[in-house]
């Protein structure tokens, strides 16, 4: 066996070592948010178009969907507020992100080696986070108007007119964000999905996709899962 082969084997087992990326709390919160969002999207789409009203039927019927949609909205909002509290520091946009943003076409074309190194979250993830967080604020505000629409006095009816437009438009934006998020984390970026289920990634994964973050934590004994 050549010395070359030995060093490769060593490097490879080191590469495959699992390190912690998300805590149990972060993962639980993520799935509370994810499941509540899926319910909100299914029932919301049912109210959106007659062609999709059958979606309400599979989750218990129109009146049931109408009854639960706002409550799940509260759960989703709470989940996102907790995410904000935990992650807003990691989500700050810095100069590296601005460079990364300019190189976004490289990222889209999977030319990741042409991108500047990223921290715990890349600029795309930051866009997703801030997009979802600002959307949830707008959805919550307009949602409350739609929830208690009958209690609103006639003189404040313009709030209703505003709320239906905001709620539908912002929900559409979140569906776009949701589609991209699910696509990237399940099929596009191998290893991402596991980070949100068992909380760990390989060293190679962290080095490839989040090098600045990897460099910060690679020698910390607590990160080894």
């Amino acid at each position, binding site marked *: 066996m050549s010395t070359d082969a030995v060093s490769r084997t060593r*490097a*490879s087992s*080191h*590469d495959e070592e699992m390190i912690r990326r998300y805590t149990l709390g972060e993962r639980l919160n993520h799935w509370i948010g994810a499941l509540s969002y899926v319910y909100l999207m299914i029932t919301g789409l*049912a*109210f*959106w*178009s*007659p*062609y999709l*009203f059958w979606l*309400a039927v599979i989750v218990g*019927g*129109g*009146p049931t*969907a*109408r*009854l639960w949609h706002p409550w799940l909205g509260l759960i989703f909002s709470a989940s996102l507020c907790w995410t904000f509290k935990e992650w807003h520091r990691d989500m700050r946009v810095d100069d590296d992100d601005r*460079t990364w943003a300019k190189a976004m076409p490289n990222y*889209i*074309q*999977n030319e*990741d*080696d*042409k*991108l*500047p*190194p990223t921290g715990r979250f890349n600029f795309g993830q930051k866009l997703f986070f801030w997009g979802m967080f600002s959307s949830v604020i707008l959805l919550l505000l307009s949602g409350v108007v*739609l929830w208690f*629409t*009958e209690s609103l006095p*006639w003189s404040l*009816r313009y709030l*209703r*007119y*505003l709320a*239906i*437009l905001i709620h*539908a*438009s912002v929900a*559409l934006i979140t*569906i*776009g964000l949701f*589609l*991209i998020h699910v*696509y990237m984390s399940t*099929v*596009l*970026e*191998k*290893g991402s999905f596991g980070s949100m289920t068992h909380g760990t990634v*390989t*060293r*190679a*994964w962290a*080095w*490839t*996709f989040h*090098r600045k973050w990897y460099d910060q934590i690679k020698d910390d004994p607590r990160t080894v899962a």
Partner: protein
Amino acid sequence: MSQAATEIVRISGHVGTAPGDGLNREFRVCKLVDTTTCIGCKACEVACLEWNGYTFSETTFNNSYQTMPETAWNYWNLIKFNEHEREDGTLQLLMRKDQCMHCADPGCLAACPADGAIVQYANGIVDFQQEHCIGCGYCITGCPFNIPKFSPTARKVFKCTLCNDRVSQGLEPACIKTCPTGCLRFGTKAEMKELAEARAQQLRDHSGFPDAGVYDPPGVGGTHVIYVLHDAKNPELYGGLPKDPQVPLSVRLWKGPLKWLGNLAMVAGVVGLAWHYMRFGPKKEEPITPDNGRRA
């Protein structure tokens, strides 16, 4: 299919056609409310409650004849009183029976997402079918007249049916039946329009109301309840009757361009992501190599 169903020409939240599509009835019905001969006796309110099986709710007192501020889910017919002081200092007690206007182009039906919760019959009656209502309240947003009202106990929305159950049996609505002055009339839209115009003419020519006219707002395609007003230029005086009611612009945008833009964007999003995967494939982790400055 029941006889009633074949007469349905428009259905809320519905994919496809209505069973009564293309049905051309000889007449559309119309209720005529002549505010100039109304005496404010509220007999129509009582008749409405009796026929529809509701009881009186608690009343309020604000030093006027107005014992309830507005219609309620279980109180579909309410006379709105306004003690109006005219420019010459004389007082005019304006009374208007408020109820669903049964618009030819109903905003409630346009806004409703529940299949069959709101239907429009060929004779012009717009009726809520509570068994299909999901209680979302979008009809409340769609209505320019503040008519659909939510029942917190039933979690459904209710409003005047124009006594569809009576009219379909050849009877006149309960309010019409009981009116002691004849200020309420019921017939075909053409007949009622003619009668209303004649009365407005009489008011203009002989009663000193030069602005008398008929309220049949074109913004909602005309209504199946029309009013004769002493002052058709200021319908707001009659308990807030809107001057030019329209289905709200935001409801039109939401159910029109936004819907098609949104549907297109969602389909384009899914197709785009599938295309991306086929064109560029998955991102894979690379073996760690000493940083040789390959990355910026």
